[in-house]
């Protein structure tokens, strides 16, 4: 019985027990970074706080803290049903949250024709993933949205040698693996692409949701035990 109880608690605590051999980035400035050398793209995570680079990027888990949770407004109805929970890593810095950017500073603008494209290739997780910008007069500009399927239109246009921020969205708590691919036209190497590179995110629910999940887990265990007798 003791082992069964522990097992139920472990299931419930699955959202908060960290995986091993990964660094969790919860706040401060970090980038989804794009470098290029010897004919190959290098997509990585750069932790601006410790100046640490994670390549492959799966060595870092990008945490979307509970402070990111909000209720989907009408303006973002394409990302999630209005009134439903939505987690937003904002493009403007919130000291309570990870300030995640897209960095191409390691690239030299003269080496590229036009802009780079960072495309969404896959989403694995309990909800949908999106990226949007807010225009000069508040217009919502959707860049990526897995809610309507992952298509060729799910992409960011990035200026080489620069750095920018966008709003990232998740529609449910839990662990996500987001597949991204960089492509561009190099002045010497021509059209190049990185292939799909996976980024790990974990979306943390608000504390009230922790309690609800724990209660649900214990209730489920109790029901299971009763059915066994």
């Amino acid at each position, binding site marked *: 019985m003791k082992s069964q109880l522990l097992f139920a608690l472990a299931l419930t605590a699955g959202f908060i027990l960290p995986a091993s051999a990964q660094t969790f980035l919860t706040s401060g400035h970090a980038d989804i970074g794009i470098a290029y050398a010897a004919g190959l793209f290098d997509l990585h995570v750069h932790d601006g706080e410790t100046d640490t680079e994670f390549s492959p990027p799966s060595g870092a888990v990008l945490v979307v803290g509970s402070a990111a949770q909000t209720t989907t*407004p009408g*303006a973002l109805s394409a990302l999630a049903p209005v009134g439903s929970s939505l987690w937003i890593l*904002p*493009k403007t810095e919130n*000291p309570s949250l990870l300030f995640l950017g897209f960095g191409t500073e390691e690239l030299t603008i003269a080496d590229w024709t036009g802009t780079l494209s960072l495309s969404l290739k896959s989403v694995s997780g309990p909800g949908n993933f999106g990226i949007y910008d807010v*225009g000069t007069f508040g217009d919502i500009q959707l860049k990526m949205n897995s809610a309507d399927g992952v298509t060729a239109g799910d992409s960011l246009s990035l200026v080489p040698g*620069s750095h920018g921020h966008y709003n990232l969205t998740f529609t449910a708590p839990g662990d996500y693996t987001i597949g991204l691919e960089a492509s561009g036209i190099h002045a010497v190497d021509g059209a190049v692409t990185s292939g799909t590179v996976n980024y790990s995110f974990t979306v943390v629910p608000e504390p009230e949701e922790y309690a609800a999940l724990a209660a649900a887990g214990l209730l489920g265990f109790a029901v299971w035990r009763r059915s066994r007798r």
Partner: protein
Amino acid sequence: MRRAGLGRPAARFLPMKFTLVSLLLVGLFTARSFAVSLTERVRLTIEHVDLKVILAPEGTNLLKFIVLDHDRATNYFTTNAVLVVAESSKLSVPEGFPELGPSGSDLWVLPASQNPLLLYLGINATGLPLSAQRLDLFLRRIDGPGHFLAWQFASAGGLAVSHSTRDGLTEADRFNPVVGGHEHHNLGFSTNGLFTLWFQARATVGGTNAWSPETPILFAVEPLPAIPAGPATLVASATELAGSLQLHLQGTPKAAYQVERSADLANWEPVTEVIASENPVSVTVPLPGHSTQWFFRARRP
């Protein structure tokens, strides 16, 4: 005796032997003390540039603004750069944004999101120690033909205007970036022309207040209005060429000037027309032999 002169009513007469070395020394001495002219400033047009606050000298509680050009990894004194707001940035304020201006009115906007065809201007607080607190960048004064605004939209679209000179300048007109952070705002100008925005930074560093002087930042919102050509300066070379004299003219860039000569300061005759394509521009003028003295001046035609 030949003399070099300048046209009236802007006429000024300079001695023949003009000590350029002393002028050069004076120029060097003042270069860091005073703003350089518009044409001598570095034009920043489409780069990723930040207005950055640093402690200078290090270890003091004095704050200073610099202009950081990320693309060239170069820092400029604020007096050595002009931030260009291209004409292509001009938009019309849509309905529903009275804070930004009357509906349909013009607004030149440097956007918070990068447009490769426009200057991408940010506010940078990475130059301060992370122990610093409460950094504010106040807009203290604006000199220019119109208004300045700065705003952001929250993730769900709520408008937050951080600066607006439309309702006058108060302590509320400020950026307050996260120390160690970097941010972008939409920056708007209500008309074209030259704008000087005077910013002052304040933070708590090591438990004490740290301040910067009020620092002018120059914006050129294009197209710039045509500036009437001003008077020119004529300087004669110390060395005469056979039967001619070399003059150096400094005037308004691209303006045309008529160089005239006189033997008696009463009767003037045209010699040649000069375009101030560079400053100074050299012009060789003949010295007719029927007079032992010649006076020269440069006038707008």
